[in-house]
């Protein structure tokens, strides 16, 4: 038999579900316990933020919201590995990565609270990142296009996109990794596989044993990591970013995690998945293992946890207040950003709406 091609997919994990270190070769960043505490703190603030968002929605102060519960290690691992000059193209629940890059909780609330200004991230480096992308996987091609721009201009920057397990079924994802392979683009595509695309489980999303291996077809470096282990996610990201930055091409990382919450606040996951599965998901969730590991290292304890939670609560309360105090945009804002300048024909419609306002409609 002649073999035309052969491949294997590495699975990377440093911390098991209980926080026991399963390999000795810790990456450099993980030897810096101060930094690991910072990562843990951001994961925790992401979780506090998420709970606050859901509470806002349940009390009628937010529209539909897509929770990130259970994804904290994957998202913070992605965001913390990137450099400021890199570009991030998220889908719509990667707050852990985005908070790291300067997206403010008030902006998330604004977006899900029905205000386009939520997409107008004020702080760098988020300010040059893409906004949330609701049409599934479309953002992968924006990252590929960004990577192409970097290559054309000779810039040492990397474009990172994230999609879900469902998103990896879409043509836009395949198109992005395909052109990244064909043109050797600095693209890192992370499949945050949380096992559920609303109600459709991973097993009927794809017949591929791993989603990472889709990258093999495109000629990209491909790896699967424990997406609840931030050390594994961050390490795979650092390696992928370094390869991309040095012109060695793109990567696909599959971060295997679990969606502990509903798809969004408009969803009720009890309709399609059993309690036991969710209980099992909680056994493997990302916070506990990192906390156990940091506690065992002597750099974290209950008092620190409570103190940081209290700080997060205060931070989020400030953000919620800032959001709730934001005045609704003037009605003319609907017309002001369609084109660089409002065309004459559109100005007539704007003037009509403004005339209704003055009449008190």
């Amino acid at each position, binding site marked *: 038999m002649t073999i035309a091609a052969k491949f294997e997919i590495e699975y990377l994990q440093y911390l098991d579900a209980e926080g026991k270190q399963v390999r000795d070769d810790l990456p450099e960043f993980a030897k810096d316990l101060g930094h690991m505490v910072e990562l843990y703190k951001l994961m925790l603030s992401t979780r506090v933020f998420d709970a606050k968002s859901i509470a806002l929605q349940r009390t009628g102060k937010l529209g539909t919201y897509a929770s990130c519960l259970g994804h904290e290690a994957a998202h913070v691992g992605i965001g913390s590995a990137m450099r400021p000059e890199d*570009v991030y*193209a998220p889908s719509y629940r990667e707050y852990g990565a985005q908070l790291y890059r300067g997206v403010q909780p008030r902006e998330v609330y604004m977006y899900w609270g029905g205000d*386009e*200004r939520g*997409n*107008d*991230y004020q702080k760098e480096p988020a*300010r040059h990142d*893409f*906004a949330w*992308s609701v*049409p599934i996987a*479309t953002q*992968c*091609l*924006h*990252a*590929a*296009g*960004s*990577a*192409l*721009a*970097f*290559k*054309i201009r000779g810039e040492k920057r990397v*474009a990172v996109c994230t999609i879900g397990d469902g998103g990896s079924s879409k*043509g*836009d994802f395949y*198109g*992005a990794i*395909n*052109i990244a392979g*064909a*043109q050797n683009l600095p693209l890192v595509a992370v499949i945050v596989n949380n096992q559920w695309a609303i109600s459709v489980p991973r097993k009927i999303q794809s017949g591929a044993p791993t989603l990472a291996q889709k990258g093999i077809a495109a000629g990209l470096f491909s790896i699967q990591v424990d997406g609840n282990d931030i050390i594994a996610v961050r390490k795979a990201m650092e390696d992928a970013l370094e390869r991309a930055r040095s012109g060695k091409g793109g990567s696909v990382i599959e971060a295997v995690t679990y969606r502990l919450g509903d798809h969004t606040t408009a969803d009720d996951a009890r309709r399609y998945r059993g309690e036991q599965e969710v209980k099992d998901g909680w056994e493997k969730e990302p916070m506990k293992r990192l906390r156990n590991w940091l506690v065992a290292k002597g750099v974290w304890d209950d008092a620190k946890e409570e103190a940081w939670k209290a700080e997060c609560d205060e931070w989020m309360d400030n953000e919620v207040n800032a959001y709730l105090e934001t005045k609704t945009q003037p009605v003319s*804002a609907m017309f002001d*950003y*369609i*084109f*660089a300048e409002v*065309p*004459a*024909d*559109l100005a007539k419609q704007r003037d009509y709406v403004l005339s209704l306002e003055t009449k008190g409609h």
Partner: protein
Amino acid sequence: MAQITLIEAVTQALAYEMAHDDSVMVLGEDVGLNGGVFRATQGLQEKFGELRVLDTPLDETTIAGVTVGLAVQGMKPVAEAQFEGFIYPMMEQIACHAARMRNRTRGRLTVPAVFRAPWGGGIRAPEHHSEANEHLFTNIPGLRVVMPSSPARAYGLLLAAIRDPDPVMFFEPKRIYRQYKEEVPDDGEALPLDVCFVLRDGTDVTLVTWGAQVKEALEAADELAAQGISAEVIDVATLTPLDFDTIAESVQKTGRCVIVHEAPKTAGFGAEIAARLAEECMYDLLAPVERVTGFDTHIPLFRLEMKYMPSVERVVDAAKRTLAAS
């Protein structure tokens, strides 16, 4: 000065802008060494290299989505859909991202891109190679929909489209790609994207059209003139945002209007113009507005396609009906 065809004017505009602006680039299927299936990008790869004249994988979604990414990063990509009938996979990226990026980010991110496509029928092409579907884009906010009808307007409008800070759909009527030549100075002068062009003055009836049908409209105007009827001919050129004032002024003068387009009649862009005339020019009209269009059928394969297309005779008949009405 060289006499050039419409397709050569497209090439000339691309070459001019790429030579003067490093951020301008071309991407699509077969646009590289092959120069595009209609030769719109002929010679560009030799001049500007394989990255700025990029042969993409064969996936229209990829072309459109990568174009959005390039444009957000400050490039000015000119993407080619090989035929208008292949543009459908691009529509999600165009409608959900290119057209709304500026609005949804309050101006933080923008998409200064051009999506070019050879448009329309009449060249005995295979199935799916003859579509006229500009009306699918004129209903999408945030897009400019532009269609040239002569070599000079192709050059000037394409330059304007590339320089425009927002996404432009640039539909090239391939039936008249090589119909005639005219002098087009390669001076980098753009034409405005916010006006209709009055190609012929007249007093009795206004013929409003765009793209390849400008040819039929002008021939119909000749025919009508021979019969003592003075027809004004307007090339809309930029369908959206529409310069309705130019059309309104003409119809206020003539009192009659025939709208000519190749796309299907129902909800074609002619319906929008007719509705605007009803809203804003009802009392200037001496006769019902006429539409001479393709039919609400798929454009037939080429044995029958010319029966589908608006003909000079149909335009002349429609114009005469408006005169008979008053």
